């Protein structure tokens, strides 16, 4: 699993990459009350805003960590945004992306580096 400085996690599953936000990020956000997901089939470029997360405190974005196509989104999250707090690392994944260049994954941190990053 890889981690971005934007506190997303990336897990390779066959030829797609599953993306969610880290436990640390979900704690910092507080109770999540609203999620807007992209549509499956959308072509995205790295660092483009693709999701909106609103917590009781504020709104924030999830950025596309890679160039590619969004092939699947976790639609049930929209009706159950609190799942991002309860199960951020597994059940509350946001979308699956089919990367056009998997080597972009190399830019990101491994788990130990991320742990150091969040201190």
């Amino acid at each position, binding site marked *: 699993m890889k981690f971005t400085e934007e506190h997303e996690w990336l897990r390779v599953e066959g030829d797609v990459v599953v993306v969610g936000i880290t436990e640390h990020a979900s704690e910092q956000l*507080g*109770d999540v*009350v*609203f999620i*807007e997901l992209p549509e499956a089939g959308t072509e995205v470029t790295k660092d483009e805003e693709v999701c*909106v997360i*609103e917590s*009781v*405190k*504020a*709104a924030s974005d999830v950025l596309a960590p890679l160039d590619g196509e969004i092939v699947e989104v976790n639609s049930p999250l*929209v009706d159950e*945004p609190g799942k991002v707090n309860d199960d951020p690392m597994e059940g509350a994944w946001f979308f699956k992306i089919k990367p056009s260049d998997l080597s972009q994954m190399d830019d990101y941190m491994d788990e130990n580096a991320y742990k150091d990053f969040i201190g």
Partner: protein
Amino acid sequence: MGELKRTPLYDLHVELGAKMVGFAGYDMPVQYPLGVMKEHLHCRAAAGLFDVSHMGQVALRAESYEAAAKAFEALVPQDVMGLGVARQRYGFFTNDAGGIEDDLMFANRGDHLFVVVNAACKEADIARMVAALTPDVTVEEITDRALVALQGPAAETALARLNPSVADMAFMDFTEVELDGVACWVSRSGYTGEDGYEISIPEADAAGICRKLLEMEEVEGIGLGARDSLRLEGGLCLYGNDISTDTSPIEAALTWAIQKVRRADGDRAGGFPGADRIFGDLAEGVARKRVGLAPTGRAPMRAGTQLFAAAEGGEPIGEVTSGGFGPTYEGPVAMGYVGKAQAVVGTEIFGEVRGKRMPVTVAKMPLVPANFKR
């Protein structure tokens, strides 16, 4: 920015695991480990304890309550002289343009007037009172007392364990009560839409009394985060967001807080800053008004969201001044100013969120019904 000040309850907040943030110059708990959502729901279901010691507590003394009250009426459009002994009332300082300089609570303490003002405004408020009222009235900021609020349907049960007499207090009563052997000033009021109390405690005793309350099963510490969502659901204004130097009390839908005796045809009409403008607004109506807003979708509409009459085109007809998620309402809630034509409950308008216009309905305030002890 200077060093943040601490309230007498700072150590207790840290011990409870609060996340501390700077607010109006004070290091305050924004949330405890329970989190904003659960704190909010707990307060509406049982009881929540809030540290509001950052607010300003001020005693105004003259030869009598009446003399202090008469002087104070030069600064506010409320009936201060007619307030009964041991009673409290909501009010606000106005400016010459009829805007609001701060909102406040004031109480008749028998021989003097007691005023509680917002933390961010307190220096200016005290300067205003000193300039306008001295030497006939002495203005004393009380800096050696904490102020806490105990709010929620179980507040009475909890506080009555420390002194059963608090159960007999009516909404907006204000009296001195001994709690755990300490002389406290207690009012039956608050700012959450729930029944409850505000309690002024000598600073040395504050943490001890708060610990006693927090040990009770009904009571949890509640941070500023949930305080904001509670007051928003309760339709209560946050000074600086929903009311300001630019909003008249009539635009702000606070007409109810200007008693008849101070209005144009009252016995003590006017005599406060901006009376002409405020009487004009009352007589002729206003072009914009503060309303409750219930977004149709799930996306919160936060402060600053522009409001439009139609789904496409046109200039903004208003703006959201406070907005977020209402845990009790179970959806987004907001308030803001809209034009006269839209200020009718049930009107559908649109708020622009991330470039998209989303439907929002003008709603009766409060969005969550109040639960005061009348």
